[in-house]
Each structure stands twice: as structure tokens, then as C-alpha cells.
């Protein structure tokens, strides 16, 4: 490791600049989400009003039975599935099977869009029940502000990821990286590695959800 860090010109021998920059962006994003989760922890610890029970608030009536937290569980499985298909897309891209890679990316984008849809449903339900960023009928007022900030910011990341996926899927489907076609913005030739870099972002969004699920919904 010391040899890598002290070496000439580049420290990250196994990662290209594109991958390294995505990682550095993700580290900065980690700090943003950490700040949200830490502020959530602080307000939850410091409030003297009882915290609403997420298990009951996010329960759904299915077939006359109230199943706790079921929507959030479905959203979790949906996001994990999309991570799986993204990993497949990366694999196909490196195998230079561009059609299969593009299809897997479209499947990933579909699951991502589904996730955002379920989140919109969840928001609508809570807003109808009277949850606001400044107050809610269930308990501590800070519940609403934490909920809307954390899930909103995560949902925004998923939405951006879906757009990003669609753009890359189109370019891969067209075979830009086989023909050495130049990028629209960069006017440089791309490589199939972009699919892996895109995958890093997508898996990160899944990773953040793992923490939100544990700390916000289950705790």
C-alpha cells in the first residue's frame, strides 16, 4: 500500500480515473447521508415526546389484515433485485454482449422506477394521514422532517440513477463502445468500464437504503 501511495504518477493502480472519481464522489455522498442520519439520531434522542412507531405507521392492510412495515420490505427487495440485475449488466458489458447488458440495465431502471413509484405512494399515504415536516398526529414532530428529508434525498438519488441508467443503456445498445464513437459531452471515446462505474453509483444507492431501512424504519 505504501508503495502504491508513494509511486510515480498514480496511486490507484487497479482503478482508472473514472472509477476513482466515482468512488470519491460516493465518499462525499456518504458524508451527506451520514449528516442526515446523524441529525435524525440527534433529534430522536433529544425529543421528550414519544417517537412514532414506524412499524405501525408503515403497515398496510392486505386482505383485511394489518401487516407491519410490508411496503418498506417490498421496496427493500425491489432495490436488492435491481442491484442484482445491475451486477449482471456489468458482467455482460465486460463480456461485450452489448444487447444483454443494455437489457439488464433497462430492467434495473424499471426496478428503480418501481421503487420511486412505491415511495410516491408512501409519501401520498403519509401526507393524507396528516404527516408534515413540522408536525404529525403520531408523536414527535421531528419524525416528519426526518422522514421527508431522508427518504426524499434517497428517492432523488434513485431517480437520477434511473435517468443515468437509461442514458448509458441507450449508448451501450447502440454499440458506441464497439465502434469507438465519441461521447456527446466529452467528445472522447468511451469504454465498457462506464457500465461498472454506473453500477458503483447504483449499488451505492442500494447501500444507503440498507442503512435507512435499519435506522429509520426498523429502529
Amino acid at each position, binding site marked *: *500500500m505504501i508503495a*502504491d*501511495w508513494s*509511486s510515480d*504518477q498514480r*496511486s*490507484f*493502480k*487497479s*482503478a*482508472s*480515473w473514472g*472509477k476513482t472519481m466515482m*468512488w470519491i464522489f*460516493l*465518499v462525499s455522498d*456518504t*458524508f451527506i447521508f*451520514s449528516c442526515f442520519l*446523524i*441529525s435524525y*439520531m*440527534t*433529534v*430522536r*434522542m*433529544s*425529543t*421528550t*415526546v414519544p417517537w412514532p412507531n414506524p*412499524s405501525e405507521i408503515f403497515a398496510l392492510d392486505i386482505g383485511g389484515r394489518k401487516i*407491519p412495515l410490508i411496503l418498506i420490505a417490498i421496496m*427493500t427487495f425491489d432495490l*436488492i*433485485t435491481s*442491484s*442484482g440485475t445491475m*451486477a*449482471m449488466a456489468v*458482467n455482460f458489458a*465486460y*463480456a461485450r454482449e452489448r444487447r444483454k447488458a443494455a437489457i439488464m440495465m433497462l430492467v434495473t431502471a424499471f426496478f428503480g422506477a418501481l421503487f420511486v413509484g412505491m415511495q410516491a405512494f408512501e409519501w401520498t399515504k403519509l401526507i393524507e394521514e396528516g404527516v408534515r415536516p413540522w408536525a404529525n398526529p403520531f408523536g414527535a*414532530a421531528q419524525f416528519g422532517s426526518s422522514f421527508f428529508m431522508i427518504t426524499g434525498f434517497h428517492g432523488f438519488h434513485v431517480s437520477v440513477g434511473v435517468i443515468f441508467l437509461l442514458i448509458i443503456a441507450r449508448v451501450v445498445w447502440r454499440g458506441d463502445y464497439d465502434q*469507438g464513437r465519441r461521447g456527446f459531452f466529452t467528445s*472522447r*471515446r468511451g*469504454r*465498457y*468500464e462506464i457500465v*461498472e462505474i454506473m453500477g*458503483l453509483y447504483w*449499488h451505492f444507492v*442500494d*447501500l444507503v437504503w*440498507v442503512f435507512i*431501512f*435499519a435506522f429509520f*424504519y*426498523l*429502529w
Partner: protein
Amino acid sequence: MKTAESENVPVAHGGDAHAAPSPRTEAAHGQQHPIALYLTVWGLLFVLSACSYLVDYFNFQGAERWGLIILFMLAKAGLIVAVFMHMAWERLALVVAILLPPMAVLVFVGTMALEGDYTHFTRATFFVSDGRQPVEAR
């Protein structure tokens, strides 16, 4: 600079005359791993998610609850970062540069936990001692 770009090989910025020869061989196929591995991890993530959901479903409380939640959370996070994000195959220099800085967040968590605890103490002492709602949460 653009000559080697079409190849599936990470190239150094600028003139790559001094680039280490090793990446060319070890990363020639990028991060390509058997599909079976991805499917295994995918399955494990499903199982772990189901486990953490069951913690809530069976309504575990107290130390059992948060212990299990954190255990399943860290297992899932580890699998995603190591396999899906290929951290297990990157060199130590990158792994340390990426994973070490977020560890500093734990210090932040610690200080804010102290702060939250103290705020709760002052509120409980000065605002809700008579059993009424605190002024700021009306």
C-alpha cells in the same frame, strides 16, 4: 493519450509511458467475475433482508432488536461493497482511501449522541418537569 482508450484497460492520465505494467495484465478483463457469485450474493441479500424484516415482524425489543438490526445491516453493507462494488478485488491503496474516511463519521455520531443526550436532559429538567408538553413541540 486517446490511443489506448478504446482498450478495456485502465490507462494513466497523460503520457502513460511510466504507467505500471501490472494493471494491464491484472485488469485486462476489467472486473469480470462468475455470474454464480453474483447470484449467490443476491440470494444472501434476500435472506438477510428477510431476517431483518422478521426482527420487526416478531417484535423483538431492546438489545436483541438493535443487535440483530445492526448485525444484518453490516452483513448486507459488507456484501454489497465487497462483491457488487468489487472492493474485494481492488488494491489496498484504494480500499483504505475509500473506507477509512467514512470511519471518521463514527466520531461525529459519538459527539452528537452526547449532544442529543444532553439536550434531552435539559428539556426533561426545565420544560416537561410538570408533565406538560414541551413548549417547542406544541
